[in-house]
């Protein structure tokens, strides 16, 4: 059983962090960040060509992380592989001891950096989860053929966007993901505790029982926040956070000190994490540092969070 499953199913507060493989084949930077994260998180999500931009595959970095003693979470999208491609990679993942996964539909190639690539979408996120659940239940592959030695099992996750209109449509898809076998859920980046609480109320009202981990994106600058508000679906950074970041930048400029907005971003992320845990708003946090994974230990420390 992986660390994340043990934590969430054991009623502990789960902590995961996101990491992207490089656009290349030198994983040094990722492995250095991994060393800093060891023992501080329950799992490291490895993205599957996030934003449809070509990177080394999730499976490769997951194997490296596993070999380095971390618990990788293999992210699986339906964008580039058919059900056969996905299931084959999942068997390989299992062969390396990777036992935790996260299913997503995947951004469309036209929004990425290899726009001519053929979008596959043989299965959507619900379909991927269902295929794995069916495999585990029957020991059979996606064509109904027996899997030699029996099927591996995965702790299966999915994602949700709490800031969404119409929200019932998102809640409905969340229910489908849970019914298809998702055991934990990571959310899109959250910046406003009230919207997270409203979302959690809706999940309760819909009678959906799963472990929800709030997505945390440490902001680095006011410009980054504004850009995300304008371009990233489901992201809504409140204006007062943007103003505070801008003020930090102005202060840094006046004093000739670099990195004040980043520091403030780390503090704001830590505050949110502490609040989520202290108030028991949801079951864990998933930190998406977008290339600044080395800052994650500092965020956890400021939040007073050590994993159990």
């Amino acid at each position: 059983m992986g660390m994340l499953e043990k934590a969430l199913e054991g009623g502990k507060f789960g902590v995961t962090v996101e990491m992207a493989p490089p656009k290349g084949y030198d994983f040094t930077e990722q492995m250095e960040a991994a060393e800093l994260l060891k023992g501080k998180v329950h799992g490291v999500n490895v993205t599957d060509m996030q934003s449809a931009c070509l990177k080394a595959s999730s499976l490769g970095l997951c194997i490296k992380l596993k070999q380095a003693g971390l618990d990788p979470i293999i992210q699986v999208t339906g964008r580039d592989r058919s059900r056969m491609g996905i299931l084959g990679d999942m068997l390989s993942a299992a062969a390396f001891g990777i036992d935790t996964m996260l299913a997503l539909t995947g951004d469309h190639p036209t929004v990425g950096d290899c726009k001519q690539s053929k979008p596959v979408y043989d299965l959507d996120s619900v379909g991927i989860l269902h295929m794995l659940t069916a495999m585990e239940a029957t020991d059979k592959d996606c064509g109904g053929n027996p899997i030699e030695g029996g099927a591996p099992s995965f702790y299966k996750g999915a994602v949700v966007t709490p800031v969404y209109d119409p929200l019932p449509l998102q809640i409905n898809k969340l229910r489908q993901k849970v019914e298809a076998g998702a055991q934990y859920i990571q959310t899109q980046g959250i910046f406003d505790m009230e919207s997270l609480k409203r979302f959690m109320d809706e999940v309760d009202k819909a009678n959906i029982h799963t472990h929800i981990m709030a997505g945390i994106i440490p902001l680095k600058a006011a410009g980054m926040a504004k850009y995300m508000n304008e371009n990233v679906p489901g992201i809504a950074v409140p204006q007062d956070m943007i103003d505070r970041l801008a003020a930090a930048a102005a202060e840094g400029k006046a004093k000739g000190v670099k990195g004040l907005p980043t520091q403030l971003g780390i503090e704001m992320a830590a505050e949110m994490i502490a609040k989520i845990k202290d108030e028991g708003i949801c079951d864990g946090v998933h930190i998406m540092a977008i290339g600044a994974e080395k800052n994650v230990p500092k965020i956890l420390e400021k939040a007073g969070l050590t994993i159990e």
Partner: protein
Amino acid sequence: MIITQKKPIEELMAMIGDAQKIAILGCGSCATACATGGEKEVAELKAYLESQGKTVVATGMADYCCMNMGVKTAMKKLTAAGPDAVVCMSCGDGVQVAANHSQVPVYPSNNTMFLGEAVRFGLFEEACHLCGDCMLGSTGGICPISRCAKSLVNGPCGGQKNGKCEVNPENDCAWIMIYRRLEALGQLDKLAKRRADKGYEKVAYPRTINIRGNK
């Protein structure tokens, strides 16, 4: 209807190449409605080819270029005029039917774009991907296979922004449209069930359907 678009004329002229005597076949159905292969477009192409020094030896129309028997008759008349090449102004299916009845090369003047409807004259929208297993009964009559850029069957992805698709912000998110329609119809319960995965076995192509009982 099959929606077609004219190829750039330079591309057609490059296909025709050195062929001097040309015959033109138009289509009386979809291509007429798309203004890509009706009588008017046949006459326009004839005038253009003549302006470029070609000889148009015959022109003709088939009611439907996708109907074998009618095309056979039309092509018999056209090829009797002794063309070096035939230009077929229909969809890709019509070009293939015509080519089956020709000893000389048949060239397409159009690109075949999609199956959809004329929303109004000159405005066409894609609406069906011929998936072989229609699910419109559970989606309020809006097709997620063709109107969702990812053909998702279990609801929206996270990519919509203000109700618009991440792939083309001009397009409405199909699943939000489906949600609104089902809400208006009092059929939101149809969203709740996971849709059985229909797989792709049924769309292994090329397909043939025979309702004659014999060939």
